[in-house]
């Protein structure tokens, strides 16, 4: 108790406006997926889109359109194609415009 008080006085700051260092617990949060463009083919993209229960993924010609706002981080796409999908680790996703949350992922995988 005394040590805590002295340490607080010495630092001069009791609280911070936002977590000052990376939050430990954030590692365990389910986060939206990240995609490996070189492992993505049109076929893989279609399979990912079909596996997404919330409609966050769809293929538009040669890109995979990922709506982060719709993603529930359920992990079904990572289970469908583990070689092409990993977790992004990003959780501070607040956006001031809805369109910012819609990402386009290029498909660079070799077909056939």
């Amino acid at each position, binding site marked *: 108790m005394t040590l805590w008080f002295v340490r607080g006085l010495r630092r001069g700051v009791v*609280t911070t406006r936002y977590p000052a260092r990376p939050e430990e617990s954030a590692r365990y949060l389910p986060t939206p997926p990240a*995609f490996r463009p070189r*492992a993505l083919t049109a076929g893989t993209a279609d399979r990912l889109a079909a596996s997404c229960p*919330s409609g966050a993924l769809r293929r538009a010609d040669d890109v995979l359109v990922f709506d982060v706002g719709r*993603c529930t981080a359920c992990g079904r796409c990572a289970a469908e194609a583990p070689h092409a999908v990993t977790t992004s680790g990003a*959780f501070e996703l607040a*956006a001031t415009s809805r369109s910012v949350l819609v990402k386009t992922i290029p498909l660079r995988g070799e077909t056939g």
Partner: protein
Amino acid sequence: MSTEEELRAAIARQFGRSLHIRTLDTGSCAVCEQEIRLLAAPHYDLHRLGFFFTPAPRHADLLLVTGPMIRAFEVAARKTYDAMPGPKVVVAVGACALGGVYPADPFTHGTVDAVLPVDVWIPGCPPSPLALLHGLGVAVGRLAEKVRDIPFTAEDDTERVRGAS
């Protein structure tokens, strides 16, 4: 300075120190509410940041909306928004509110933007208290929006090896 920039500056000035939040559940499964309640826990302690929960929209500056906006709640949502004094901010919380879980059908609108003018969108199912804290910071202009610069692509293994050597 455009009208939008002026408004943002006014919000930062007026809401920079203290802000009262009214939560509005438009048909969510209540997990978003659990995370919102966790914001008041000692670990996150949003009161030290000048955010407070208020039980009445008349006292609120920020409307924290969860759920897919069921049609039966539309009138109540509009009345809540109209009852708030200006300037006011609407924050949509969770994948339901952003259109990810329920489609627009005779029972739900599917998104909050269909009824209310949303200013900040917080994705997540549910968004963690840290994500909500970041979203509130973005809403009052204290924290920068990060998601704009996240590409959601992972480096290929070959590139990672090359980068490490």
